[in-house]
């Protein structure tokens, strides 16, 4: 399943810019998620977020923005694979 999202914010600049539209694949159990992938996930209390996978450890994913002020795993820790809903299509 394909979905189009609009990026809100600049924490992944210059890879993704505020207002940019991106195409994403739905992530299933068999989907491969690698370091460098941009993943869409749900995180309370922030809602639907997009960040880049920086580390994978024991099946958990450490996601980060490129901006040092980004709200990401440096604040809320590793996310679960089940939190990841979509993955951006295309080169990083």
């Amino acid at each position: 399943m394909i979905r189009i999202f609009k990026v809100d914010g600049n924490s992944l600049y210059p890879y993704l810019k505020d207002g940019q539209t991106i195409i994403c694949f739905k992530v299933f159990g068999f989907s491969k998620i690698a370091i460098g992938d941009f993943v869409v996930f749900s995180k309370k209390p922030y809602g639907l977020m997009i960040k880049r996978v920086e580390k994978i450890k024991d099946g958990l994913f450490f996601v980060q923005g490129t901006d040092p002020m980004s709200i990401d795993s440096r604040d809320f820790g590793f996310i679960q694979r089940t939190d990841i809903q979509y993955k951006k299509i295309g080169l990083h």
Partner: protein
Amino acid sequence: MFKLDTVKAHCDVPCGIYDTSAAQIAALSVIRMVDLINAAEKGDDEAAYLNNMARYIAVKEQEAVKCKEEIRIIWGDFIKPNHVEEHKDVHTITHNIMMLAGAAKQHTSRDKAMELLAEVNKFAEIFWAIKGVETKVVKAPYMPGEDVVNPVL
């Protein structure tokens, strides 16, 4: 055909700078003041002795309060419910720090001051684990030269 939703790529302002090092330095300072208090000798110059003792005690009070304040801010502002689920002892450790810092103000026991540092180090381990940063135990490169948990950067 396609649904267009928004995904957040936000930054935090202010930038969410949290670090346990200030609390660790404060705990080390408490130990150092306890050492200085216990090693002080009266000698012939009583005024100088009293002056030094007053200063050691004042700094010990100040650093114990600072230690509590630094930990309280990280615990209250940074630690979230999901962190508590993963690190169930964080509330107990924080409470221990509050109690031990209070005890450090009341007493001149080195053992109590060392217990304070040990709990602050436990808190630092949890904090850096949440941040996904590895830690290592190192000797502080200054008096009192006790162990501290530092991030591997």
